[in-house]
C-alpha cells in the first residue's frame, strides 16, 4: 500500500475518512462534510448511536451533495488523549475501514489540546495505517480477489507541511516490523537457521555488517550449550551478528540478543501435539532483533548497536541431546539438561557470553519467547521484564508505555536462583513449575557479568488471535517499536 501526503481539502472522489471527537464533536473536516451533505452526518450519528469513541466507525454511502463513494466517520476519542499511539490507532482503524476501497483519503485536522499535533500527528496516522495494512498471504494461492483487501493508495490530508518527512523515519520502522512479522509467520519448513541467516545477509545493502558463524566455528569457540540444542536436527545451527555503527566511532554498542528457535518440537522432551504448530514462531526474539536492526539502519539511527541471534532447530532424533546430559557453555559453566524443551535459555546463554566477550556492550537486552509460565503469569497484555538494573528497567518500561508494547517487571533474587542448583553440574536448565519465568531469567543472569542487562520474555505477546488497530492478528513483532523507542530516548539522545 502506498501512502502519500496532501493538503487538506474535501476530496472529489473515492472514500474519505474524517475524525469525530468524543461526544460527537466534529473536527473541521467532519464539519465540512456535514455542511456539504446538508447535515447528513449529524443525523446519521444520532441514528447509529455513534459517540465518537476511539475506533468507533460510521459509514455514509454515496452521500448526497458530494461525489464521494463513501464517507467514514471515525471516532478519535478525547482530544486530551491523542498521543502517538492514539493517532496510530486512528490511522490503523481507517485502513481497516477502507479495506474494500481501492483508494482512500484520511483527514488529519489540527485539534486543540491534543498532546501530539502537526507533522507528527499526520505522520503517525500514516504509520498506523501502514502497520494495519500488513497481510501475510503468500501461501493463499486460491483466495478470490474479492476476498483480498483492495486498498492500494491512501492519502493523508493535512495542513502540516513536514508530515511526509516525519513519516520517513516511521516508514523505516514499519519496514523493520514487516520483516519481523514475515520471519515470524514463515513456516519452519521454509525458514530454518540457514534460511534465516540468508534473510539477515540481505540487510547488508542497508549498511549493516553481517557475520554468520556455523556450527564448526561455534564449537571451536566452546558454545557447547547452543550447539547441543541443534544436535537433533539435520539443519545446521547459526549465529548471526548484525552491526550498525551510526553513532560515534569507538562508542560501546548496545547489544540486542534474540532467541531464534526456528522450530521447537521440544526435542526428546517432546511437546504435546495440541498447539505445537505455534512453535514455528519460537524464533520471534531473533525476528524482533533482526527487524529492529533493519529499522535502525533504515532510519540511520545515531547509535552503535549490535544484534546477535542464535538460530537453531530443536528436534528429537538419534543424535539429539538427552535429559540428563551435561553440556559446557562458552563461559565455562556446566549445565545439566533436565528438560530438552527448556532450550531457549541454552541458546541465549552462549550468545550472551559471546556478545560480552566480542563487543563489550554498554548494555544488553535480550528477547525470547522463553516460557509458557509468563503467559500464566501475565497473559497477553504485558511482556515480562527482568533486569539487574533499575534505570534500564525503568527506561524499557517507559518506552513500552509510550509505544503500547507494554512490559511488566518481575523479580529476580538468590532465593529463586537456588531452584536451578544441580547435583552434578553448575546449574540445571529448569527450576520446576514454581516461578518458571523467574528461574529462566535467573539462568540467563548467570551468563551476564557486570553489564546492565534486561531480559524480555515475549512468549505471551508475540502472536495475537485478534486484530487490534495497528496489529493484524498473527505475528505482532512486539518489541521492535518498544526497542526502537528505547534507542531513541536512551542511546541517541544520551
Amino acid at each position, binding site marked *: 500500500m502506498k501512502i502519500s501526503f496532501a493538503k487538506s481539502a474535501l476530496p472529489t472522489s473515492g472514500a474519505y475518512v474524517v475524525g469525530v471527537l468524543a461526544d460527537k464533536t466534529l473536527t473541521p473536516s467532519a464539519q465540512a462534510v456535514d455542511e456539504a451533505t446538508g447535515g447528513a452526518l449529524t443525523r446519521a450519528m444520532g441514528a447509529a448511536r455513534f459517540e465518537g469513541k476511539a475506533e468507533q466507525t460510521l459509514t455514509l454511502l454515496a452521500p448526497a451533495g458530494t461525489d464521494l463513494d463513501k464517507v467514514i466517520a471515525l471516532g478519535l476519542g478525547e482530544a486530551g488523549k491523542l498521543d502517538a499511539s492514539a493517532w496510530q490507532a486512528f490511522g490503523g482503524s481507517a485502513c481497516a475501514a477502507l479495506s474494500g476501497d481501492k483508494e482512500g483519503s484520511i483527514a488529519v485536522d489540527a485539534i486543540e489540546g491534543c498532546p501530539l499535533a502537526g507533522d507528527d500527528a499526520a505522520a503517525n496516522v500514516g504509520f498506523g495505517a501502514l502497520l494495519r495494512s500488513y497481510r501475510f498471504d503468500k501461501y493463499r494461492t486460491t483466495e478470490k480477489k474479492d476476498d483480498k483487501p483492495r486498498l492500494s493508495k491512501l492519502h493523508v490530508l493535512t495542513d502540516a507541511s513536514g508530515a511526509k518527512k516525519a513519516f520517513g523515519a516511521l516508514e523505516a520502522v514499519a519496514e523493520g516490523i514487516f520483516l519481523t512479522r514475515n520471519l515470524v509467520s514463515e513456516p519452519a519448513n521454509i525458514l530454518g537457521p540457514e534460511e534465516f541467516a540468508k534473510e539477515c545477509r540481505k540487510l547488508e545493502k542497508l549498511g549493516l555488517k553481517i557475520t554468520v558463524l556455523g556450527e564448526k566455528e561455534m564449537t571451536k569457540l566452546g558454545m557447547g550449550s547452543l550447539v547441543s540444542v541443534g544436535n537433533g536436527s539435520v539443519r545446521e545451527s547459526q549465529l548471526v551478528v548484525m552491526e550498525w555503527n551510526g553513532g560515534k566511532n569507538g562508542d560501546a554498542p548496545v547489544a540486542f540478543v534474540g532467541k531464534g528457535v526456528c522450530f521447537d518440537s521440544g526435542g526428546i522432551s517432546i511437546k504435546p501435539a495440541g498447539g505445537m504448530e505455534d512453535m514455528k514462531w519460537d524464533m520471534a526474539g531473533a525476528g524482533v532483533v533482526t527487524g529492529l536492526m533493519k529499522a535502525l539502519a533504515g532510519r540511520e539511527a545515531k547509535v552503535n548497536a549490535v544484534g546477535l541471534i542464535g538460530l537453531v532447530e530443536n528436534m528429537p532424533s538419534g543424535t539429539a541431546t538427552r535429559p540428563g546430559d551435561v553440556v559446557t557453555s562458552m563461559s565455562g559453566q556446566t549445565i545439566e539438561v533436565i528438560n530438552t524443551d527448556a532450550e531457549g535459555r541454552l541458546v541465549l546463554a552462549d550468545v550472551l557470553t559471546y556478545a560480552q566477550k566480542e563487543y563489550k556492550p554498554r548494555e544488553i537486552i535480550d528477547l525470547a519467547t522463553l516460557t509458557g509460565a509468563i503467559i500464566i503469569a*501475565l497473559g497477553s497484555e504485558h511482556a515480562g521484564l527482568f533486569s539487574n538494573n533499575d534505570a534500564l528497567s525503568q527506561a524499557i518500561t517507559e518506552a513500552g508505555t509510550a509505544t503500547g508494547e507494554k512490559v511488566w517487571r518481575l523479580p529476580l533474587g538468590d532465593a529463586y536462583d537456588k531452584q536451578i542448583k544441580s547435583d552434578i553440574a553448575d546449574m540445571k536448565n529448569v527450576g520446576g513449575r514454581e516461578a518458571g519465568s523467574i528461574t529462566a531469567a535467573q539462568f540467563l543472569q548467570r551468563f551476564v557479568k557486570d553489564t546492565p542487562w534486561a531480559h524480555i520474555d515475549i512468549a505471551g505477546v508475540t502472536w495475537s488471535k485478534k486484530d487490534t488497530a495497528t496489529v493484524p492478528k498473527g505475528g505482532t513483532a512486539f518489541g521492535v517499536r518498544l526497542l526502537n523507542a528505547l534507542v531513541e530516548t536512551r542511546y541517541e539522545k544520551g
Partner: protein
Amino acid sequence: MAQLDLTFTAGALEEDSSGALVVGVWEGGNLSAAARALPCATALDRAVAASRAFTGKAGQTLTVHAPAGVAWNRIVLAGLGPYDGVDDGAATAIGAELGAVLEGTASLDLGLTPALAARCAQALRLRAHRLPDLRSIRPADEAPPLARVTLRVADPRAAEDAWAPLRAVAEGIELARDLVAEPANRLTPQTFTERARALEPLGVAVEVLDAKALEAQGLHLHAAVGRASVHPPCLVILRWRGGGDGKPALLVGKGLTFDTGGLSIKPAAGMEDMKGDMGGAAAVLGTLHALASAKAPVNVTGLLALAENMPGGNAWRPGDVLVSHSGKTVEVIDTDAEGRMVLADALSWGCATEQPSAVVDLATLTGSIVVALGGHHAGLFCTDPDLAAALRSAGQASGEALWPMPLTPAVDDDLRSAIADLLQCAPAGSGAWGGKLLPDALHAARFLSHFVPEGVPHAHLDIAGTAERKEAAGPCPAGPTGFGVGLLCAWLGVASNG
C-alpha cells in the same frame, strides 16, 4: 500446646546443668565479653578455630557440649556479625537460628539492647513454634521442645515493653499457622468459628452469619460454594475498635476449610494440601488476635469467608448462574474456582456494611500466582498507589514480601459471559499455546475488583505460593507460614520496624 516461657532478666544467669548457655561471637571469631568471661573461654576459642563453617556471621551457631569448668551441659556460640553492628535484621537472624537449634531450657547472654533482644526473642519464638501434634506415639530419643528461655538484658523493663507488641504479633502468626495445619475433619467452618469466638475475651466483637443468614442477606455465591457440605458455610465478622470513631480498615480472608474442587474435582495427587485453603482467613484471624492483644489504637473489621467445597447431589454446577450480594450475576465455569466466589460476596457485604477506609483481602487463590512468583513473593493486585506502596513497605519490614502484579481492564474480555454479567473464570482451552495457558491470577484479581465499590482503595493478596513453605527460612519453620499477619500488623502500625 505448651507455651514457650520467655523472660528477661538483668541478673547473673544461674548455671543450669540441664540447659544451654548462649553467648555471642563477633564475625571473624572474637568471643564477646560474656563468652570471654567464662572459665571455658579457651576451649571456646579452640572450638571456633576448629570449625570451618562457623565464622561468626549473624545466623550461624556452633554448639560446644559439656565444656570443662562450667556446669552448663552445652554452650551455644551465636554469631553476632560485624563487631558492634547488630541491627534488627541481624537480631532476627540470630533469634531464628537459635529457635532452630535450642531445646529444653536455654539462657541467652548476648549483650543485646532491649529492643534488639525483643526482636531476637520474636524470631526465636516463631522459629521454635511447634504445630499441633496429633501423634499418639513419640520416639523416645526425640529432642524435647524448647520450653523455657531467659534473656539477659541490662534493662528488663524496657525489653518487656518492646516485647509486648512483638509477642502479640508472634501469637497471631502462630495462631494462623496452627489453623492452616489443622486437618479439615477437625477444622470445619463451625470449629473455625469457635476459634474466632475465642477472641471475645480480648475485646473483639464477633458476629456470625450462618448459611441461612447468608442466603437471606443475598450472599448467594458464598452460600452456593458451601452448599454440598454437611458443614455449612458461614461468614464470621470480627470487629476490633481500638481507634475511636474513624472508619475501619476491612480485612477479608478466604476460608475454604477444605477444597475438593467440587464437581470440577481436583486430581487426587496433592489434594491433602487443600486443608490449607483457608490460609487467608487464618491470617485475618491471626491479625485480629494480634491487634486486640496489643490493644492497637486502630479500627479494623475482619471477615472470614468460611466454607467447605464438596461434590454432592446438592452441589453448585458449572454453567449455573448465581446472583451475588452486589446484584451482579455470575456464570460458573469451574467449581474449583470457588475462592473468588466467597470473596466476592464478602467484599461486597463488607464494603456495604462497614463503609471501610480501605480493604485488603488475602487468599490462597490461584495456582497461576505460584507459576508466576513462586514461594518468595505474594502477588499484590492494587490500583491505589498509596495503599500498594504502604503494603509493600509493610511487607518488607515484616519479611513478608509482596510483588505488584497488573490489574487492568484488558482481561475483562476474557470474563465476558453470554448470559450473565461476568464469567467466574476463563474457560479451559481459551488460553494460548493450545489453550492451556491462562493468566488465572489476573482473571481472579480483576473478577474481585468488580465487587468492590469504586472509590474504596482495595488490595488483593494472592498468597497461594507463600502460605506454606517446604524448607525453613529465618523465623519461619517448614510448613504453614502465617503469611500476612506480620505485614498486616506492620501496615496497621503494630510492632513495625524502626
